[in-house]
């Protein structure tokens, strides 16, 4: 799918991408999978509630997505570090080997805005806890689905200049300290895509994703090496698509 993108700052190669809800491929089955029903059917009642949530989600998602392409100035094997526009990142030993062959990086951010989050909270307060939970789960699946689209968009753009891309990695995952979220956003315009950070590195709106994608002639996209990570209940462990298995490192 070809997405329209608009420059925010041409010199700094900062872009926003236009994504609408109808561009998404989010399905009830995907949400069921994300909340645990992987390879088994969710009870019919729950499926009905997910359908009801999805039927209202389009009106409640204020989708924004964007990225900045930056040259990697320096790599430090010893520190598993990357220098980008004067900012030093330490994405640790799980991510660094995937990025170290990259010549450039895309720092990205995606959000669906606050409405889904507020709606979910309101449902919980009204005692409609199941629907509140499903709204929250759907919001998480939706924002990941948008990030998938952005990832594909960046892949397509880079292919035009015969560059490949890596997986995406986010602060707080794969042992990358979430406090580096502040460093990541320091490379983006203030309030980029309407996202701000709390002192504890939480993105607001909460249903947002940020991260880095490596770009280069010699990088590759690989399956997530979940077995190298100690976080057993990570989103990306549970989000593996049916049939997709985590790579077991020998």
């Amino acid at each position, binding site marked *: 799918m070809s997405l329209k993108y608009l420059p925010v700052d041409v010199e700094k190669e900062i872009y926003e991408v236009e994504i609408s809800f109808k561009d998404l491929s989010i399905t009830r089955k995907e949400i069921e999978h994300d909340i645990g029903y992987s390879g088994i059917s969710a009870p019919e009642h729950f499926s009905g509630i997910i359908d009801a949530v999805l039927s209202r989600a389009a009106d409640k998602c204020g989708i924004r997505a964007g990225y900045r392409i930056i040259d990697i100035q320096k790599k430090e094997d010893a520190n598993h570090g990357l220098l980008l526009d004067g900012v030093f990142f330490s994405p640790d030993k799980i991510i660094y080997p995937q990025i170290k062959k990259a010549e450039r990086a895309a720092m990205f951010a995606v959000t669906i805005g606050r409405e889904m989050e507020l709606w979910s909270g309101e449902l919980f307060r009204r005692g409609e806890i199941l629907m509140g939970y*499903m709204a929250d789960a759907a919001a998480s699946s939706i924002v990941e689905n948008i990030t998938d689209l952005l990832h594909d968009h960046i892949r397509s753009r880079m292919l035009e200049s015969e560059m490949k891309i890596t997986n995406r990695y986010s602060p707080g995952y794969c042992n990358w300290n979430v406090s580096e979220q502040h460093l990541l956003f320091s490379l983006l315009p203030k309030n980029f895509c309407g996202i701000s950070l709390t002192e*504890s*590195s*939480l993105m607001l709106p909460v249903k947002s994703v940020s991260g880095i994608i490596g770009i280069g002639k010699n990088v590759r996209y690989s399956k997530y090496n979940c077995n190298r990570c100690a976080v057993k209940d990570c989103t990306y462990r549970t989000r593996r698509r049916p049939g997709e298995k985590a790579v077991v490192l020998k």
Partner: protein
Amino acid sequence: MNDASEKIGVCIERGKVNKSSPYPGDMAGQDGADELTVSALEWGVTPDKILSACNIGMQRIGEKFGRNEVFVPELLMSAKAMNAVMTHLKPFFQSGNVKAKGKFVIGTVAGDLHDIGKNLVAMVVEGNGWEVIDLGVDVKPSKFISAVKENSGCIVGLSALLTTTMVNMAKTVSEIKAVYPGTKIIVGGAPLTYDKAVKMGADGYSPDPQGTVEFLNKNLL
């Protein structure tokens, strides 16, 4: 009489809230926790007995959750059924005829706004007969300390989703312990492990609501 309370326990375990609830499909049209509690009280079943049956139902669903046989939605339906029972039992708690097992103060630590995991634990703990004092999200150590002061003998539960807020969790544990060294504290949340919990000085760690209930029941005063 036993049959009535057992049926309520089954409704809790299966998440059957009331007669009009379509869930679970195989119990559609049957009385739920709501109607059965009203009937049981009319027949003279004691609130204690009803509560005990509920606890068994909650324990069963909690164990299934721990074994990945059911997921959060099933647990939520059980909590909702439990809530329907509690609506009818509340007057007995208020009059002192029924006593909660103890008090559990819970909150998401300062800097963290995530509350679904915390809410789930609160609902399951309440369903197991504990009085829950939910302080909400982004709770500063001083607020936990005030709550411990106001709820003598309570056990404290701290939740965090972010690795950065684990620092605040450790600070909260340390500040509570400095003022109330005897207060038991259990911690939970995605970035935590047993080792991290021990390191920060907590008395317990649980990755799921049922583990929290087991910790609380072991630490009954």
